[in-house]
């Protein structure tokens, strides 16, 4: 008990060393070292394995983890590749360490408490940070849905009618193509020449039908192929007559197209 063991400079130990007392390693140890006393690894000492003891004083080379119940001291010239954990860790100038260093331990409750709070506060803030971020994102998401509602009244609704009208106008063209005989003549007129007579005739008759067809078109495009074709044409023409004569839109389009 308490006796100091020595691994001489000319000795190589291939195996585990464990037990009570202190140990001084001046040679080489290929294996784990676990003692209750202090461990001193001399300048020429080399250890490949984990070392645990009360106080580790390293001046040589260690490839393995260092665990000290009291302290781990790396003296000048020490080269350690491995994790270091002890209540007190000292790394002197000239010592080389590569690995994780943790200054806490069983014997030093105070030391353990100080690092613990640091680690704990870090995690909560991280959680807090994500929380605000998350709400922000949802807020944006929510804001967008409400926003569409508000704009919908101002902008969204107006554009939809316009858009649908245009969209409907376009689809009819496509639809018209398949059904070439009946619709073809009307779109052709709309695109090429002023179809004043044809639009005027259809609008009055189709005014009654107009409200129904847009809904049907929006709800079920496939069905639109049959019925919407007729209502679509009246829609673009409808707004013009009440607000401004159809001539303006049609004439402008014709003029531009003619210029082009």
């Amino acid at each position, binding site marked *: 008990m308490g006796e100091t*063991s020595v*691994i001489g400079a000319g000795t190589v130990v*291939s195996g585990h060393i464990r037990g009570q007392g*202190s140990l001084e390693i001046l040679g080489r140890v290929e294996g784990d070292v676990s003692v209750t006393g202090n461990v001193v690894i001399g300048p020429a000492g080399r250890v490949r394995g984990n070392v645990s003891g009360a106080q580790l004083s390293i001046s040589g080379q260690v490839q393995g983890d260092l665990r000290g119940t009291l302290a781990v001291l790396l003296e000048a010239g020490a080269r350690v590749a491995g994790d270091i954990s002890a209540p007190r860790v000292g790394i002197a100038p000239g010592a080389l360490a590569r690995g994780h260093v943790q200054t806490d331990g069983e014997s030093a409750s105070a030391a353990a408490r100080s690092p613990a709070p640091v680690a704990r506060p870090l995690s909560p803030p991280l959680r807090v940070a994500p929380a605000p971020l998350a709400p922000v994102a949802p807020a944006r998401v929510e804001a967008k849905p409400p926003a569409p509602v508000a704009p919908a009244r101002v902008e969204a609704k107006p554009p939809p009618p316009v858009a649908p009208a245009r969209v409907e106008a376009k689809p009819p063209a496509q639809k018209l193509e398949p059904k070439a005989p009946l619709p073809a003549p009307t779109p052709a007129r709309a695109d090429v020449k002023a179809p004043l007579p044809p639009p005027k005739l259809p609008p009055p008759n189709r005014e009654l039908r107009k409200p129904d067809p847009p809904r049907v078109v929006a709800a079920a495009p496939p069905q639109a192929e049959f019925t919407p074709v007729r209502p679509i044409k009246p829609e673009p023409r409808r707004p013009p007559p009440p607000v401004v004569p159809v001539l303006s839109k049609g004439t402008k389009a014709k003029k531009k197209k003619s210029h082009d």
Partner: protein
Amino acid sequence: MAGTVIGEGLTIEGDISGDEEIVIHGNLRGRLTTTDAVTVGGTAVVGADITGASLSVAGQVTGDVTASERVDIQAGGKLVGDIKAARFTIADGASFKGNVDMEI
């Protein structure tokens, strides 16, 4: 001072090799090879083949021993195993079981 000392209470499981004196007061299981003297203290328990220049046993040794010079079993010492050594002494009160070969 001896080059290597295995103190009482210390246990080594593995091989020890070197070129210096080795003193064992603790436990050793494995193999011990050196070019210098080996001393097994009274509190030591060794289960290993020992190779060295000389061997002095005051504790318990189980294993074959090869010594280039001599082997001495002290009073109270116990050795179980074959011995190859030029000189071999067994003190009064020591115990020994094994073969002896002194023709080196």
